[in-house]
């Protein structure tokens, strides 16, 4: 079991060995996954990660060392390694860290039922029921149902006196259905995550959740791919979240800006999106993944990245904040203790405006309604702004009405062009997170939240066959 006292001892040791500044991180994460595949229990796994990471700073050099062994010898080796690497790094270049407030706090997600303490049989029975019911539905040839239960406890101590503990519990269920229609097979997947205990699993009707996915997969298998070209699009909450995270969020991360690898570098104060767009990164928000403090122990503030179309700033860690002459925004995050931090988003979303969702469709003679259910995600090249997304089964819009379903929808564009083309933003803000995935960068995966309201964009490239 990790605790603040252990971290204090390590901090004391690394400072005694010569570090001028230091950050000590302890982590204990348990992830439990139950997977039923096409009527058979495919796996029941529980993985546990416990470890210690130490960042030492000496004369402008930074060294990071980690160990999964918490015995005295291993810890001593790790502190020694962090010191020696910091000395090597200090000879190669100098780096400094923006000051951060000294904070003592403990953040804990409240829950009623500890998901890891629930009888394994009950959990298996739930997943089995949802999966086997799905397999009974007409035209469903394969289905994978997954229960994910996670607890992640992190302790961060700094030489400036910060001592924070963050304890997050999350639960969720994911379902993928594969439907066949003639020679065409198509899949649709979706997942739902709650931050809190197993009580959230107990109160949701998961059979109804899976049924909707199954029915969409069956309809998608009978749908065509859209004609390729440029479309007017109404974009739903989930796709807006994906789009902002990939297309804009990564380019607003301070490390990319400092490295000259972001298309947003040097554009603070410039108009980068339509006046209807305000983009925020918030650490703790309804529906999102809670990040009250980052892995440098800095409070994750509500950061306004774009205010009514104008770029206001970047997401920063302590070193990138120093470099960019900004305040640290609390966005230094690491997958686990075997990695030092990178600048990452937390919960990145667009703020709602006044339009009703229905109003966004008005006046569109031919367009597309981009839907997130079944979306696989996206990718961006932040240095040039090109992005691409794989969207879920979507609908063609004809004369303001939602028309036929289309499958295999992929959209592409340029960050700065797409957000400038937004001409309406609805009032239905929705943010979601997931215990089944997250955001990947530099070989590290972290949990994030994203979302926004429905929006309308005048121009987006849609690929098709």
């Amino acid at each position, binding site marked *: 079991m990790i605790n603040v006292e252990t971290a204090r001892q390590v901090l004391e040791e690394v400072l005694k060995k010569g570090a001028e500044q230091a950050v000590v991180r302890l982590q204990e994460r348990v992830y439990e996954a139950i997977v039923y595949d096409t009527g058979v229990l495919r796996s029941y796994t529980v993985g546990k990660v*416990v470890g210690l*990471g130490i960042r030492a700073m000496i004369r402008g050099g930074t060294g990071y060392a980690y160990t999964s062994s918490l015995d005295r010898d291993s810890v001593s080796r790790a502190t020694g390694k962090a010191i020696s690497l910091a000395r090597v*790094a200090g000879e*190669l270049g100098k780096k400094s860290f923006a000051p951060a407030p000294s904070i003592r706090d403990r953040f804990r997600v409240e829950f009623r039922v500890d998901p890891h303490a629930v009888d394994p049989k009950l959990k298996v029975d739930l997943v*089995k029921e949802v999966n086997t019911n799905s397999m009974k539905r007409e035209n469903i040839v394969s289905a994978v149902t997954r229960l994910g239960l996670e607890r992640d406890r992190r302790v961060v101590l700094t030489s400036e006196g910060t001592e924070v503990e963050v304890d997050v519990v999350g639960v969720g269920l994911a379902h993928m259905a594969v439907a066949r229609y003639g020679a065409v097979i198509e899949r649709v997947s979706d997942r739902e995550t709650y931050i809190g205990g197993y009580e959230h699993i107990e109160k949701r009707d998961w059979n109804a959740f899976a049924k909707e996915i199954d029915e969409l997969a069956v309809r998608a298998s009978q749908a065509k791919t859209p004609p390729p070209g440029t479309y007017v699009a109404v974009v739903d909450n989930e796709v807006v979240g994906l789009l902002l995270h990939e297309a804009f969020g990564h380019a607003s991360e301070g490390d990319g800006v400092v490295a000259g*690898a972001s298309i947003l570098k040097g554009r603070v104060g410039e108009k980068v999106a339509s006046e209807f767009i305000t983009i925020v990164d918030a650490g703790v928000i309804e529906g999102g993944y809670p990040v009250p403090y980052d892995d440098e122990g800095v409070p994750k503030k509500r950061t306004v990245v774009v205010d009514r179309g104008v770029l206001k700033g970047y997401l920063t860690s302590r070193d990138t904040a120093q470099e960019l002459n900004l305040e640290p925004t609390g966005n230094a995050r690491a997958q686990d203790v075997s990695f030092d931090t990178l600048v990452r988003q937390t919960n990145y979303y667009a703020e709602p405006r006044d339009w009703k969702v229905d109003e966004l469709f008005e006046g569109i003679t031919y367009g597309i309604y981009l839907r997130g259910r079944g979306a696989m995600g996206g990718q961006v090249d932040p240095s040039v702004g090109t992005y691409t997304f794989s969207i879920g089964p979507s609908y063609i819009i004809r004369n303001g009405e939602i028309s036929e379903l289309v499958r295999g929808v992929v959209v592409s564009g340029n960050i700065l062009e797409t957000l400038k083309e937004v001409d309406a933003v609805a009032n239905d803000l929705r943010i979601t997170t997931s215990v089944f995935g997250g955001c990947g960068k530099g*070989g590290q995966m972290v949990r994030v939240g994203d979302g926004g309201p429905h929006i309308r964009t005048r121009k987006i490239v849609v690929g098709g066959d």
Partner: protein
Amino acid sequence: MIENIVERGVRLGEKLGVSEIEVYAIKRTGINIVGTVRGIERISAGERIDVGVRVVIGKKATVQGGLISRVEDVDAVVETAVKIANTLPEDPQWISLPRTLRMSQVEEIVDPRIRESDIGYFIDIARFLLGRASEIDKRAFTSSVNIHTATIERAIGNNYSEALREESTELVVSVSVKATEAGEESGYYDVYLAPTLARFKPEEMISKATEIAVKTLGSKRVDTGVYELVLIPRVLAGVLQPLIVPAVCADSVQKGRSPLKNKVGSQVVSENLTIIDDGTHPGLVGTRGFDDEGVPTTRKYVIDRGVLKGFLYDTYTALIEGRNSTGNAFRSVPYSTPVPWISNLIVEGGHGSLSDLVKDVRRGVVVYSTIGEWLSNPVSGLLNATITNGMYVENGEEKFPVKGVVISGNIYDVLKPVDIRVSSERESCFGRFVLPALYLPKITLAGK
């Protein structure tokens, strides 16, 4: 140490009366160096030991594990696994863990220079790469360099067989180059990933990345339409991995998620394509003496001159069909349930060079990089990738740079035409692919 973890875990499982037990342990030790325009940003180092325990009681199976600190920590993992296995329903398809653990002979998987992790040597490489792009072309600069070295010790044992142990090394060097001119920006990255330094050529790597970043400055979209396409080897790797690899893995086939189900013996792609899975190929990161459940790795034809020859199996999927594992068990993390996956994927070469393929293009695009190709759909076979670096080609000549264009189509239609061609020159890409360049006569691009 890791053999001790394996032996201790197996013994405890036997003592607790389980039907079968398998313990897999892996220790990774390594360094990371991160450099940006500001110079060497940070250096980190560490070691971690992961363990995965698979326990079977009757036909009830579970996998537990995680990071552990000491040999004795495996006890708690085994005890939890036994407790959970007892509560599970039976898997009617369960037959057995592998009965014999053995190793194939493999070469070039350890490099002493990587194992010794000489920090000074790798810092020099990082500094060279950081400074070199702007020397080659003043419009370019290196925006980031990441170097990661690892020494990997793996051990596996089960109640049927003595434990196996193997050591390998791994080097990952990735470099990103950015170019700017007259308000236009472009970027390109390259990666070296291999168990040894044998084929590592930093000058060639940075020169190529710089050349492509610079020549794709001022990219634009082409009109939506049908074009010829030339994919360089790493772009082909990006297409094969999400679409063909899952489709040839036996679990996808058995569960009805592969478009290749019931097609063994049929022509599924052009006869100019031959695809081999080879876990024994020297010097690749998928090269191992044994797979992730202790079965020897092998070399086998997956697609021979366009004809599907067979699928990739782990022990579980193989025994369902009454056959032997092909040595393709893979764990995404050490404590996950093994599934079939490629070891290394080799596509046989054809005729001519990349430039020969480009010379014969009448109206098309040569693609140097894409994003989003991993979002393609292996179940339906729908390919989607967005070009980030490409050159429009007319009558064999590169005319102007292209980006932001979506490549779409069903992979089995795209790879079917008889006039598909592959180059004789091949490259190792992303550590586990050895591939030629590929010419596609007809594909839809969504652009303007």
